[in-house]
């Protein structure tokens, strides 16, 4: 064991990302933020589909978050379907620590990259497979992108206006939650391998639907014990009146929430209701729920957002304004937390590319955003030369054959 502390937690690890669209590439960029050498492998023919999605909607690619999803990595091309590519991929696997992929289970197997094969090539390999419905079970071959992760996890059923239809979130909640679960699992497997005497790699089966299903901890237990399927209730919460979103005098929205006795005391004090026996304790307030809703709506409607924030801060009551991207972008706290970072455009444009900073903040090994995304195959020469000793002429041949 060395005694020298390294600058970045993951700087000695290499990750091969054969993922596409969102969940796979986002996972590897999270590892890249903390120093891993991430190599994103794309099809030379089509590239990662996310590159095209932005174009088809007639918007700059940045608006789809492509650069955020693909930051902190190097980009190479390799057509995994081709015989010659299989051998090249296996040579890369031999010098890597982690492979991430988010195809359906049979796809990598069909191309000759099943777990048994890869572990023989590199017994220390961690293979993180992120199929929609996982690697086992009757639905394992179902396709699943984006909102399927919300729908099948149970989340969407609980989101929407009371008595109205199901409403999905405004972004890819399912994929991005899968990504942080997968990144955590990969680092956990590295921990076992390198710090717990494990010595070997392992297979991680992390489905898209699993994380949100697991994270909504009450849904199975409550149905099992009471027969109630938790359902949507607008911005309110069915088991307490002390959580809602109300509009302020100046047209902003404010979210308040109190799930402990102490938080309830602070909230009713902020709203000036400490002495009102209809509202100052949970049991009574549940009985007078409609009146409480109206009282709260009136209270917020008579105050500007700044006034509301001041009262809540003074009373230590739980509450935050509803923020848009515009509000966040200009917010002094977001700036102070370095939650917006600016990177040079990798395609040479004048305007820097701005995106979210590194989360979470680690005091000794803080991580950093390596680079915005690169053009397709931008590191072919560098990566294939450095890792496999393939020279320029050989690369030209491989390119002509459509292998890279």
């Amino acid at each position, binding site marked *: 064991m060395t005694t020298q502390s390294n600058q970045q937690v993951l700087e000695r690890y290499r990750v091969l990302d054969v993922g596409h669209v969102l969940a796979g590439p986002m996972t590897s960029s999270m590892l890249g933020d903390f120093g891993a050498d991430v190599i994103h492998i794309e099809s030379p023919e089509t590239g990662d589909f996310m590159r095209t999605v932005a174009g088809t909607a007639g918007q700059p690619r940045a608006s789809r978050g492509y650069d955020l999803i693909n930051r902190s990595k190097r980009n190479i091309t390799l057509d995994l379907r081709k015989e010659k590519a299989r051998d090249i991929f296996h040579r890369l696997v031999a010098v890597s620590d982690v492979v991430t992929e988010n195809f359906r289970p049979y796809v990598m197997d069909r191309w000759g990259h099943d777990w048994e094969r890869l572990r023989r090539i590199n017994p220390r390999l961690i293979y993180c497979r992120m199929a929609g419905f996982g690697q086992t079970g009757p639905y394992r071959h179902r396709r699943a992108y984006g909102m399927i992760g919300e729908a099948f996890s149970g989340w969407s059923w609980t989101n929407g206006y009371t008595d109205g239809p199901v409403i999905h979130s405004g972004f890819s909640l399912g994929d991005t939650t899968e990504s942080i679960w997968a990144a955590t699992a990969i680092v956990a497997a590295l921990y076992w391998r390198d710090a717990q005497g494990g010595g070997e790699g392992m297979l991680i089966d992390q489905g898209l*639907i699993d994380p949100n299903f697991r994270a909504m901890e009450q849904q199975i*237990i409550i149905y099992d014990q009471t027969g109630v399927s938790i359902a949507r209730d607008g911005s309110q919460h069915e088991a307490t009146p002390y959580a809602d979103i109300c509009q302020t005098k100046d047209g902003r929205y404010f979210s308040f929430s109190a799930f402990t006795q102490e938080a309830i005391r602070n909230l009713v004090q902020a709203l000036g209701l400490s002495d009102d026996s209809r509202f100052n304790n949970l049991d009574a307030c549940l009985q007078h729920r409609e009146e409480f809703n109206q009282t709260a709506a009136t209270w917020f409607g008579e105050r500007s957002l700044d006034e509301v924030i001041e009262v809540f801060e003074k009373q230590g009551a*739980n*509450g935050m304004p509803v923020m848009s991207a515009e509000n966040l*972008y200009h917010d002094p706290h977001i700036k102070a937390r370095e939650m917006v970072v600016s990177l040079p455009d990798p395609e040479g444009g004048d305007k820097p590319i701005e995106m979210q900073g590194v*989360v979470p903040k680690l005091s000794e090994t803080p991580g950093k955003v390596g680079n915005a995304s690169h053009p397709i195959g931008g590191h072919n020469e560098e990566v294939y030369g450095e890792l496999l000793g393939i020279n320029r002429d050989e690369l030209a041949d491989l390119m002509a054959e459509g292998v890279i």
Partner: protein
Amino acid sequence: MTQPKQQIFEGVRVLDLVARGAGATLAGSYLADFGADVIKIDKPGEPEPALGWPYVKDGTYLPYKLKGRNKRHITLDLSKPQGRDLFHRLIPDTDVVIEDFSAGTMEEWGHDWETLSALNPGLVFCRISPCGQTGPYRNRSGDGRTAEAFSGFCHIDGEPDRQPLSSQFDMGGAVAGIWAAYGIVLALLHRDAHGGKGQVIDLGLYEALYRQQVGNIPGYSSTGVAPKRAGSRKSGGIPWVDTHETKDGGFYTYSAVTRASMRDQMLAMGMFIDPRFEDFPAAHQHSNEYHEVAKEWMKERTLAEVDDAFQRYECSSAPVMNGESLINDPHLIAREQVITVDDPDLGTMRMQGIVPKFSKTPGRVRHTGERPGARNVEVYGELLGLGAQELENLRTAGII
């Protein structure tokens, strides 16, 4: 080389101070499911989260059976001098402390980083607060739900002409919990595999969902336009992503983002011959019509019929599930995502299984969540050598 550990976090001790009702309890749960000795510390006499039915049944706060799974529960008043001393005696044999108090609270009680790291330089101190430990809003109060508002999540959740929504789940807290776990495992790897020291992890609750909304900041920065609420349809006009009600009152979601999956979706609804949708630029132009056609098509069919048609073409699609359909689903049961366990209060009960699945170190459920202080005798005896009389005195003084 020593013998490999059976579980990923075997031998790692965690003091988990996260409030019992908070979604961020997931940080400690993740470590506990994979073998860490997680000691959950509650304030003595502090009641369970203040919620009504169906969250509480016969005096039992139901979600805690899962939130407290695999954790050992003790009580300790961290704010009192005697409690502080006991807490500090636990620190040398502890690897990780996780706390979710408002910024400044731990300092006020004498548990600042300088003090704790002096007691144990290898300590990983994971701090989850509403807005983080720095910046102008660091002293604001909030929880996972208000974090959803501040992260930008609520602003884009709901119909365009109506107010923002919040779901029934503490998604803000639960997502922050797993980001916290990420930071903790990174810090443990740095310490135990690379010879590093302990360190502080500083996570604002809002930062997890904020970081995950990939298009938000890049989009506003590059176009000057902030995304708005758009119902179930994604902003930007992709027509192949939506949810509709079926004839029998279910909801069905489709979500295609690749060319192949878009084509299959249109085939499933018999649309490919319609010139308005025959290629992708055309379908983009007729996005609203596509929405209406799909809506009508689903209204005429049951959830099962819709699913059959979509699966015939291997579409990226699924029924919207709820508690009842999830608990009975054959896929979730086959994958042991829904498991049956024994609980001393509730008898045989069902809850979620272990996520994710590691081939070598699969994790396991040792016991369900316990009541506050259930392991006082065991933990204080084992770690600090406290006997029955000492514990009784501490209990009488309101320390434990």
